[in-house]
């Protein structure tokens, strides 16, 4: 069986689902970051696969963008996370509700 576009897209969808589930359910901020990474990477897979399928490099270009942005996001996010942990000694999401409406 040849691995075609559909397989990549199914994989991306599964990963996206996992990521989404993680985003919704995880209470640990670190895990949340992981889940976000999974989400982003699932999209990257989709981009790369469709780019290859159409023979258009724009999709892969986008994937690189996403990787770069994800990296910087993680860098900033983890920095904030550490600061938060030092102050509050916890990275539980439920306790972060300073912006309650």
């Amino acid at each position, binding site marked *: 069986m040849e691995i075609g576009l559909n397989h990549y897209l199914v994989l991306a969808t599964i990963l996206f689902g996992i990521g*989404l589930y993680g*985003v*919704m*359910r*995880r*209470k640990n901020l670190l895990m*949340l970051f992981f889940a976000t990474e999974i989400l982003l990477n699932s999209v990257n897979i989709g981009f790369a696969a469709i780019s290859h399928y159409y023979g258009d490099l724009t999709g892969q270009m986008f994937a690189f963008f996403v990787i770069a942005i994800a990296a910087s996001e993680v860098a900033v996010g983890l920095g904030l996370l550490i600061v938060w942990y030092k102050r509050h000694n916890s990275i539980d*999401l*439920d306790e*972060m*509700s*300073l*912006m*309650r*409406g």
Partner: protein
Amino acid sequence: MEKYLYIALFAPLVSSLFAALFTAQPKKQFVGIVTSLLIFTSFVSSSILLVYILKGGEPIHVELMTWMATGGLYIPFGFVVDEVSVVMMMVVTLVSTVVHVYSNGYMDHDKSFNRFFAWLSAFVFSMMVLVMSDNFAGLFIGWEGVGLCSWGLIGFWYNRESATWAANEAFIMNRIADLGMLIGLFLIYWNTGTLQYDEAFAKLPYLDTATLTWTGIFLFIGAMGKSAQFPLHTWLADAMEGPTPVSALIHAATMVTAGVYLVIRAHPLFDLIPHVGLFIASLGAFVAIFAASMALVNRDMKRIIAYSTLSQLGYMFAAAGLGAYWVALFHLMAHAFFKALLFLGAGNVMHAMHDELDPFKMGGLKKTMKWTWIMMTIASFALAGVFPLAGFYSKDAILETAFVEHHFIIYTVLLFTAGLTAFYSFRLVALIFHGEERYKLFGIHPHEAYKYMLVAMSPLLVLAIIAGAFQHTFFELVEEALHAVHYHIHSEVVVWIMTIGTQAFVIAMIIYAYKKYARKDIKIPDGTSPVEQSFIYKLLFNQYYIPYFYEEYIVKPYQELSEIFWKKVDLKIVDATVDGIAKVLYSTGAATRGMQNGNLSTMLRWMVVGLVLLLLIAVAIGITVRYSERITLFLSGLGVL
């Protein structure tokens, strides 16, 4: 001659403003003197104008300045002195002068002496505007002006609850009628394009009867308020709360006759609508007997005279309604003299009796108050219409008019009322001046009024006696202006029978009244005698329960409805709806606030929900667009489209 017109008109205004300067100060005798002199000046000017008109001079017409001008409307301050207005001016200024002089004595001890004269002169000015104006709007200025002054003077002793209540009642009652008057003005304006008397009257014959009828009705509604005709009559009796000179001037001689004046002034209109005229005459006759009946049993001296005024106004309307405008005007004039005299006499009695008003508590006053007794007796004779006093001529003319015009019901009613008038007038005189000196029980020491007050009253006395002699001159004066005709009964025998019969009837009633009330053994009624227990007595004594009816079924419901409108409708419905809308928005916000609880994972979940929803909508729309044709086909198959 214009000069005299301006003097006659504006002297009272100057007088009022002058007195107004001192209102905040304690009594200043010169205020009374100066205002009296200024009113006298106005009287002299009016007399000069009267002589001028009597000699056949052309009516004087002046236009002072524009008042309102917009669109097609043009209202100037215009004044006219013609045969009708000059008569009114004479009546007004003469009685006013007498009352001003008299008030110097009557208000002698009042702390608001100066204020009294300010109001009184302001009233004279308003009345002059009313009678001299050459257009309906100017008439309305005077009309409301006298209403204002009447308010200020009825409520002159504003510390008394009853006085201020009566003042407000008078003002509001008059306002009801003024609305009618205003509508009458609008009708005139929109149908003739002007409010000037002469121009408007010239166009009246071209209008249809319906319009004319409505105009006549609404104008007459206005007249009904000022002249206190049924059913707007209750304020007049209550207005007796004011100082007695005020009652003499405003509520007997001048203001209350303004309604009659209006009908006379608008006679070209009422000539065209005889059916309305007949209604006016019938109402007049009804009010004549209605008011006289209430006067029969009343126990308040001033109210008795007030009801008699009401009754006489009924006579005037009866005459005016039947088209005998000059007769109405003549009776108006004669009535002004003897009724003002009667009131001023009553004022003397009140002073002597320390403001006691119940004639049953007086009696035998003729010894101490000889002159007042003579004056009031003569005034009562004039009122009863005894030959040869003023009332005989004027009232007789009204009766003759009704007879000649073949309105025998009106005639009979008026004739019967003449008898009642004689009875209650002399009941009052007998109770006050004859019989036992019942006041001694109350420890009162009566005294005659100041000399100059009596002197001031004397012109009225003279006129009450001799005014009848001027009937012919008067007729000639107004003949042209009012299209006056003599009402003559053809058969001389009938005339004699009628005149003598009437006189005999009246004199019999006078004697009866004397017999009944001049006795020595009159007791102060205490409500136990069989007469007082009778239904008719109670009905009359309570003024047919009309004030009670008004209080219970109009005033109170109005108050309650106002309360309901405020507390229930405005606060509970209208405002609550507005607040309700605000509350819905607010509570929606409060309910959905949970979404924004600041918890990242909750918000993320909401984000996902939103995303899914949007995706679903997008898909749904996409499918619909794609298969729109098939859907249409399907739906039309179902018969929906």
